[in-house]
């Protein structure tokens, strides 16, 4: 029986762990938090089918019960030592022997306070999509002044595709998250006017384009092509934004009651630190570098160290599950060579 240590107990970590335990390996998950599920715990429902995130969380919680997976919660890796073909992973006073390691450390949302001009944590009623998910869960979509918002702007590409925050890449899932949230709000508050301010709408996956069309057709969501350059507060406690309506070629101002910033997915703040600990490479963006873009996703630059999920690149829950299964397959193949 081979020993595998998984770093991170989010969706990617747990799915990889289960797939590897299914193959008869002894698997240990080391998770920093006191529970499994990672960032998904903060979400209310998922695009494109509005599946409740608790359904996915229940799936992984039920799945993990089928296997004898060792859980080490509230723990972080402190030291990594080579041990023959494998490694010793130290956490606290425990040492785990691992024939293979899977890094599934996940992502962070871009810290929207870094885009000061968008007013996050400066003005009332400027939120991120994660704040809105929390509002969906609590069932209260009112503004901080306790009123139903009459007009809402959803701002795409906050902290992604932006040289000014050193994030050159497209975080890819925010576009559809914005459309999903717009529809959810429209269902909840049918009288509210909702605008999406976008540069390009990247509806890349199955059913995303249909969701975009449905937002227009059934919920009267309006799409304005322009990057929001400034947010300010008005004397009557509302918000005002400036953009260019690029399709009409004219600057545009709009008063609003609520702004939702679609913050991009970033590599976790400590991903580089984890990478140094395991002596694997990261990309300029901070995400873990796979051996080959096409053929070796999830295989890292050091023998026996693998990655799964959003620590490789931004990805949706569906892609994370797929990716975790594919990484588990590659780990199994590797273990046969030992």
């Amino acid at each position: 029986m081979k020993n595998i240590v998984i770093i991170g107990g989010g969706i990617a970590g747990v799915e990889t762990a289960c797939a590897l335990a299914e193959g008869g390996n002894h698997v240990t998950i080391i998770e920093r938090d006191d529970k499994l599920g990672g960032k998904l715990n903060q979400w209310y429902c998922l695009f494109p089918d509005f599946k409740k995130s608790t359904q996915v969380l229940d799936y992984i919680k039920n799945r993990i019960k089928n296997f004898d997976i060792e859980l080490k919660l509230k723990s972080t890796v402190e030291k990594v030592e080579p041990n023959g073909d494998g490694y010793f992973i130290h956490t606290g006073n425990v040492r785990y022997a691992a024939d293979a390691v899977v890094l599934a450390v996940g992502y962070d949302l871009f810290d929207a306070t870094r885009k000061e001009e968008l007013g996050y944590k400066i003005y009332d009623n400027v939120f991120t999509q994660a704040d809105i998910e929390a509002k969906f869960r609590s069932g209260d979509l009112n503004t901080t002044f306790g009123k139903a918002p009459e007009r809402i702007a959803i701002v795409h590409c906050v902290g992604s595709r932006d040289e000014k925050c050193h994030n050159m890449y497209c975080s890819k899932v925010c576009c559809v998250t914005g459309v999903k949230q717009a529809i959810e709000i429209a269902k909840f508050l049918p009288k509210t006017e909702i605008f999406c301010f976008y540069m390009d709408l990247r509806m890349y996956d199955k059913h995303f384009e249909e969701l975009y069309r449905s937002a227009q057709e059934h919920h009267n969501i309006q799409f304005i092509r322009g990057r929001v350059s400034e947010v300010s507060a008005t004397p009557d406690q509302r918000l005002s934004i400036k953009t260019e309506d690029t399709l009409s070629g004219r600057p545009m101002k709009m008063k609003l009651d609520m702004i939702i910033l679609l913050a991009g997915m970033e590599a976790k703040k400590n991903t580089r630190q984890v990478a140094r600990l395991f002596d694997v490479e990261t990309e300029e963006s901070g995400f873990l570098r796979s051996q080959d873009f096409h053929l070796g996703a999830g295989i890292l630059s050091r023998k026996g160290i693998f990655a799964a999920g959003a620590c490789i690149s931004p990805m949706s829950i569906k892609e994370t599950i797929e990716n975790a299964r594919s990484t588990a397959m590659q780990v199994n193949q590797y273990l046969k060579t030992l």
Partner: protein
Amino acid sequence: MDFGYTTLETRSIDYDKFDRKLIEYLLQYEPSLLVCMACGGCTATCSAGNLVDFNIRRIQLMVKRGETDTLKAEIDKCMLCGKCMLICPRGVNLRNVVMLIKKKLSIDSGQLATKNNIK
């Protein structure tokens, strides 16, 4: 014979007829102009554009398409405040592009002496 008709200028951009000298000059000295993705952030924040009819994003696009007939009058509306550079997510140095357009127009009209046109 005059039948009272004139031919209208076509509204389409004739890409085959355009004089590339200006855009080539701009790209030589400010290659960042290549990476504009037309988000409109510059125009939204533009000091001049909020007061008068001036669209800096559109101007750089028209230069790239060789449509420069009204350029001289348009470019003089820029106040050179530089906010467009501060906002640009692709790092285009638009203020320098404006300065270069002004310089090239001056050189071409003989108002600015350069090594090439000093006789």
